[in-house]
């Protein structure tokens, strides 16, 4: 039903779009929305409805914050209302008479700054009355909530999705209980008294709805801006990579811990600011305003609107909140009238207001079953490819473009030195006492039967698994046991045997994740975008496009397509491209030609060779011995975790140990093809 409406809407707008251009239509649409929002209180003078709209804006900002945590970073937070509470009580405590410590000299400079007042009651000693300005507390509440966001998020870092949700649910329950049980700070269940309203250059907001409406509007515009900037930045891409595949994200150089904490912090900050706004408007706060049903409602709002889509979650929140506080009574009357018209008893009697929670539960279930992407999906559909773009002839001769060179490596020293590397899983020795030296500018193939420890070996070198014993030295520095993202930064990149792409990100974004480790923009830079950041982003895009272009027209025409829509071979190519974008000195390829037909295999083999010409050292796990023969300078054979042979391909093929490992019985050397 929703898609039908959307198609109808688009078909109405399409002729306009053709005439004026899609971007212009969007701009005009936004301008109209902005005009309508600004004019609304002046045209529609009902204070109650303006108030309802202001409340709805508050919930929309909350939904935006939850969207950062759940939609961008993929962390299901079921206790988000806790941060709303923290921001609200933070402002409430510093702008009411609730907390009144005794006066001492310590408070005098704060009094001078206007943050506190001195209360004298005649008989009792003087007390402090907090009078911190709303405008100061708005960001401060955000920061306090962000602090708790990091605090509550820290224990969840290693948990998988559903456990993470439960822990956040636990914190979400604890906060209102603590608020209720510490009446000295919060006045407990009775609620705060007399929280001060904002004061703008002498104009006190008081109980009028209109100034709060505009304040809410300003807040949401600001937070939409911040969300949008973050989404299309290095940070946003890193979050989405974590959401799609944490392991791959880490292997591409993303510091999971820092970024997850950042997501929690930013999301909590949105809620904290909203809390200050909400409480300033209401002038009171009770613990019951921040319990589990609020967190669930926010989840329903973002699921309904479209997880990950900024306009979607805002729309979802506004619709559901305005439905409850403004339209529901009218809607009930319409339904009753409809029931009278059609004489259906159910419609005549149903009270929508009573059943609104039930309706929301049904909405949640139906959306999850039938339209998980929500009202406004996070991904826009892409245009189809032309015939020329779709056909790709396998080419020989390696890469068509030039590759960027990393800093020149000392060709006389070994690039990778491995001594005594061992790893056991339970009773199984996956890798046992492995020694290996890799000289720069070589292609070294690692072969062996299934289960011989090849992928584990890769995992050990790239930091995905910590070794039990042994040392790994890369370019003269010890990298044993370092975190994956550090190792990527040092110059080792990899692809995965079972493909770990970021399925719901575009081809371009997948490649751009590769640049994460070579760029430095943080959250603040992502939002403010000074020229340095813009330059870095532009350069990163150029680099990514160049690497994608190395594969001819296989990847570039599909730059805006989601990775999961690619063919299997193209996905393999994309993984390699993604790894190349991080400008590695050493590239670990895990069965790169798996699933490719012979022609494609030859094409990729040539491409790998040209990587070596460009100065990249390659470590290659391969089952196709033809490929190994073609390009490997050096072959290492593993069996049951141990190295049983190494040398030039021809030597290894004749080695009896190797033959026995693969074929299981002694055969004369003449069997070599």
């Amino acid at each position, binding site marked *: 039903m929703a898609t039908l409406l959307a198609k109808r809407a688009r078909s109405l707008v399409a002729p306009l779009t053709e005439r004026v251009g899609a971007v212009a239509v969007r701009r005009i649409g936004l301008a109209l929305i902005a005009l309508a929002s600004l004019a609304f209180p002046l045209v529609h003078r009902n204070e109650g409805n303006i108030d309802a709209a202001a409340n709805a804006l508050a919930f929309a900002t909350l939904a935006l914050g939850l969207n950062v945590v759940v939609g961008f970073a*993929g962390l*299901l937070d079921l206790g988000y209302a806790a941060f709303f509470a923290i921001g609200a009580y933070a402002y409430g405590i510093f702008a009411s008479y609730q907390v009144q410590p005794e006066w001492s000299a310590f408070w005098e400079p704060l009094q001078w700054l206007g943050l506190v007042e001195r209360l004298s009651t005649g008989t009792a000693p003087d007390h402090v009355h907090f009078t911190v300005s709303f405008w100061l507390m708005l960001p401060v509440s955000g920061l306090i909530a962000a602090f708790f966001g990091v605090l509550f998020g820290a*224990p*969840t870092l290693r*948990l*998988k*999705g*559903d*456990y993470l*949700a*439960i*822990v956040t649910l*636990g*914190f979400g*329950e*604890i906060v209102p*209980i*603590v608020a209720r*049980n510490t009446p000295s700070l919060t006045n407990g269940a009775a609620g705060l008294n007399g929280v001060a309203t904002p004061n703008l250059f002498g104009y006190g907001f008081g109980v009028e709805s209109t100034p709060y409406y505009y304040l809410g509007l300003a807040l949401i515009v600001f937070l939409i801006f911040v969300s949008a900037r973050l989404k299309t930045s290095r940070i946003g891409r890193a979050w989405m990579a974590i959401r799609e595949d944490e392991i791959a994200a880490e292997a591409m150089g993303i510091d999971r811990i820092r970024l997850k904490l950042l997501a929690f912090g930013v999301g909590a900050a949105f809620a904290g600011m909203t809390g200050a706004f909400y409480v300033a408007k209401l002038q009171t706060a009770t613990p019951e305003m921040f319990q589990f049903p609020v967190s*669930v409602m926010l*989840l*329903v709002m973002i*699921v309904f609107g479209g997880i990950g889509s900024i306009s979607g979650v805002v729309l979802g929140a506004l619709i559901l909140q305005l439905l409850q506080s403004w339209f529901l009574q009218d809607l009930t009357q319409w339904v009753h009238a409809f029931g009278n018209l059609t004489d259906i008893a159910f419609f005549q009697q149903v009270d929508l207001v*009573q*059943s609104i*929670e*039930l309706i*929301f*539960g*049904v*909405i*949640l*279930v139906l959306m*999850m*079953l039938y339209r*998980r992407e929500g009202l406004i999906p996070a991904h826009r559909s892409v245009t189809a490819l032309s015939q020329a773009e779709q056909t790709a002839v396998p080419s020989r001769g390696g890469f068509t473009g030039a590759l960027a060179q990393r800093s020149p490596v000392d060709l006389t020293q070994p690039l990778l030195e491995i001594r005594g590397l061992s790893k056991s899983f339970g009773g199984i020795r996956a890798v046992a006492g492995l020694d290996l030296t890799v000289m720069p500018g070589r292609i070294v193939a690692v072969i062996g039967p299934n289960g011989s420890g090849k992928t584990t070996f890769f995992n050990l070198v790239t930091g995905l698994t910590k070794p039990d014993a042994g040392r790994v030295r890369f370019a003269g520095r010890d990298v044993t046991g370092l975190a994956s993202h550090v190792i990527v930064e040092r110059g080792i990149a990899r692809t995965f045997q079972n493909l770990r792409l970021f399925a719901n990100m575009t081809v371009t974004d997948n490649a751009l994740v590769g640049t994460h480790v070579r760029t430095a923009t943080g959250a603040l830079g992502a939002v403010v975008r000074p020229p340095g950041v813009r330059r870095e982003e532009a350069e990163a895009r150029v680099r990514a496009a160049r690497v994608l272009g190395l594969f001819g027209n296989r990847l570039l025409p599909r730059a805006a397509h989601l990775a999961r829509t690619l063919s299997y071979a193209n996905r393999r190519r994309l993984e390699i491209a993604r790894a190349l974008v991080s400008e590695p000195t050493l590239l670990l390829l895990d069965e790169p030609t798996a699933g490719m037909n012979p022609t494609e295999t030859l094409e990729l083999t040539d491409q790998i060779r040209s990587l070596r010409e460009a100065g990249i050292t390659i470590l290659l796990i391969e089952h196709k011995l033809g490929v190994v023969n073609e390009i490997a300078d050096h072959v290492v054979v593993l069996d049951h975790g141990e190295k049983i042979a190494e040398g030039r391909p021809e030597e290894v093929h004749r080695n009896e140990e190797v033959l026995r490992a693969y074929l299981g019985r002694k055969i004369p050397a003449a069997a070599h093809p």
Partner: protein
Amino acid sequence: MSFWDVLLQQVINGVSLGAMYALLALGFTMVYGIIELINFAHFNVFMVGSFIALWLLQAMGIVGQGHPLYGLPLIGVLGVAFAVTMLASGVLGVAIERLALRPLRNVPGTAAMITTIGVSYILFNVILLGAGADSKNYANPLPPLRWPIGEATLRLREVLVWGVTLALMLGLHLFVRRTKMGKAMQATAQDQEAARMMGVDVDRVVAVAFFLGSALAGAAGLIFGLYYNYTSFIIGYTAGLRAFTAAVLGGIGNIPGAMLGGLIIGLIESLGGQFLAVRWTDVIIFSILVLVLVFRPTGLLGRAAPTKS
């Protein structure tokens, strides 16, 4: 009452509470063990089960507080009540799985769990709208027998709770270990794909798991009503969170773990209330939940859970 009498009484209280939580945790943990799904709706199936049992008892003419039954009529009434309630709850569980969860079985991530939150809300609100927000009095057919131990008291209904919980746990244990379907369930819990390839009808196994789990929830609902002599739309909420913590504490997916976890949570509730204050019980229980999930996610008895890719 001397200190030891108080302690004993609180231990009795705690163990009874624990048996209730354990029964509720059993069904929940079993489903998790098979399909790794945190089913929020389980605790409202428990609540619905208690209402089904209430209406059944009313239909059978068992009303009021002062008319206990003895001997054969009592066993007959209880037998019918348990059988019908468990059947109805089981069917409800299968329906939920079929309609709301099976379509999402292969969707990665937390989509299915979010859907169970929605289903939970639906059950909760249907009962609230249909039956009202006030608590409903339960009939009390149990004779008021009690046995004093020092100055502490042991009541019949406490014995009933332990008895039924142990019997059901034993039944479940035997089912899983001895029957063909039980073995199929164990196989599916270990590796769904491999079990499917060995000819196990995974859809059927999951349906049976939901049936059993929900039947246990329904039984817990009936016991709740008989024990506390009331039910209301909200009973799933708090009992649910405690039972959930019990399941996690014992080791989610582990059946004896659910019993152990339930017992521990029950004792924490009663002893914590005695020596600290009942106002902090919720905070203590949630803290335990957080600590267990962070530091020992496999729980006390659990095996290392297979990680979802």
